């Protein structure tokens, strides 16, 4: 399975931002919202320098992030806001454990890649990501290698989300 998209490199002063927590992604003051479409406009609304992300992002875009992305609370909103914006995948050096689960369950492709900061990616670059073997390509050349999805993750992703997957195996 190969996806292609335009990247957003979530950095500050030329360095990927580590420890972006769920309050920076989706602040707790919007937690009462249950309509996923409405969540889109608050994506990164508490991350300095990235508050205008919902206006800039397009369907199919890919987010590139640092260590421990999505640490903090268990809110699904912090995943749903990106799905609602049409974000195709998030490649981070590492993820907060709960965030990773939430993303997998909702069918958002999340890949861990320790060397993604060395791939030389800039905002607007188009990359190709092979979800089966983790290869990240730019202009046809491999620029990074992410950890492939585990079998359960891959199965849930293919089914669409956890609920759809569960129907297929039960």
């Amino acid at each position: 399975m190969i996806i292609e998209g335009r990247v957003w490199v979530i950095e500050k002063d030329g360095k990927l931002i580590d420890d972006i927590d769920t309050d920076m992604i989706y602040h707790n003051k919007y937690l009462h919202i249950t309509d996923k479409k409405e969540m889109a406009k608050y994506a990164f609304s508490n991350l300095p320098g990235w508050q205008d992300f919902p206006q800039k992002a397009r369907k199919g875009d890919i987010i590139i992030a640092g260590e421990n992305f999505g640490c903090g609370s268990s809110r699904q909103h912090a995943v749903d806001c990106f799905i609602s914006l049409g974000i195709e995948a998030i490649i981070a050096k590492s993820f907060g454990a709960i965030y990773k689960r939430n993303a997998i369950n909702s069918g958002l492709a999340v890949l861990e890649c320790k060397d993604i900061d060395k791939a030389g990616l800039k905002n607007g670059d188009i990359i190709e990501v092979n979800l089966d073997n983790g290869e990240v390509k730019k202009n046809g050349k491999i620029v990074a290698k992410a950890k492939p999805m585990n079998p359960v993750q891959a199965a849930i992703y293919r089914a669409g989300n956890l609920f759809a997957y569960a129907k297929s195996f039960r």
Partner: protein
Amino acid sequence: MPTIIEKIFQHHSKDDVKPGNTIWLDVDLRTARDFAGAQVVKNLLENYDGDYVDDASKTFFTFDCNAPANTIGYANNQQICRRFARENGIKVFDVNRGIGSHVVMEEGLAYPGVTAVGTDSHFNILGAIGAFGQGMGDVDIAFVFKTGRTWFEVPPTVKVNFLGMPDARWSAKDLALLCVKELKGKVLGKAIEFYGEIVDKLSLAGRITLASMVTEMGGIIGFIPPNKEVIKFCRERSGREIEAIAADRDADYEMEIDMDVSNLQPLIALPGSPANVKRVADLPSIEVNSIFIGSCTNGREEDMEAAYNVVKGRKIAENVMAKVVPATREVWSYMLEKGIIKEMFDAGMIISHAACGGCASGQLGMTGKGEVQVSTSNRNFRGKQGDGDTYLASPETAAASAVAGYITEVDDL
């Protein structure tokens, strides 16, 4: 040989429990709180046609974020949960009861060896009593409500050995902050087991404090092998014979970390990150505008007593707001009976009903721009408890700072 998490998982799974393997895990206790609870209900209604709950006797709602609701949005969400609970025979621990992760211990629903999930990212606090708890999002929790199980990648276990005993004054919060500072980055996505004399001596409240901040260390869960006090508490509360699960002597740990605690002192995390930890004594004079005593980290009887011991017979400094939020109704009752509330009131403190408070934009504890707050909670990310600057410290340090009007430790008061 198996570690504690591996043993608990083996009792709850047919799959091969090995670090790195993804297994299907049977879940004994399934909960959702007012935050995300309505989403759980929505997921169930949208994805299934009736038969929403695998076992209502194992399923609970616990309202603690905004209790009672201080926004219409939360009030609506709580009402959605209540209605769903009534229709499906689920018990609700409502807005008068307190923080869900504590309530399940008090009610004897969580005890050593149990597997439990909730929509609270600090649900791994149950490691304090040797149970497996895990915070999850609303999709996961809806799935568990419906099926009674969840998928889980078995984490490797790191063994932390505390060496020595502190000479100076210390609290469980100082130990927890030290661990966030020292372990963050080393335990991401891993289970932890804590050992050493200092852990053996921790009360249940102290264990809750340490276990609650494993989330901030980046760990999946931190287990503290239960001592006699914990076993007794769980036996009384659950009405069951309790057998504590211990790791095998030659359990396979991914890593062992020795940490000397003989120099442990009152610590404080500076605004922005729970890992930016300094000694209170090393800070310059910083004026305090407010303090918050409470949360799942420091909301127990013992925490309230520690703050009470500092403020009794004293007055909170002028222009300082001292906000106190007991974790549960039981803690509130204890404070009432012991005269703690009267003393705190006389000192000038504000005492709220039991719930999460500031951590969840709750009923009390938010800060305004420029406000300096010393909080006993577990997170001080930017914007988490409002627009102000939040420092994390123990109830003693918070109370002492409220009395002094600037950040200080008890011994310098």
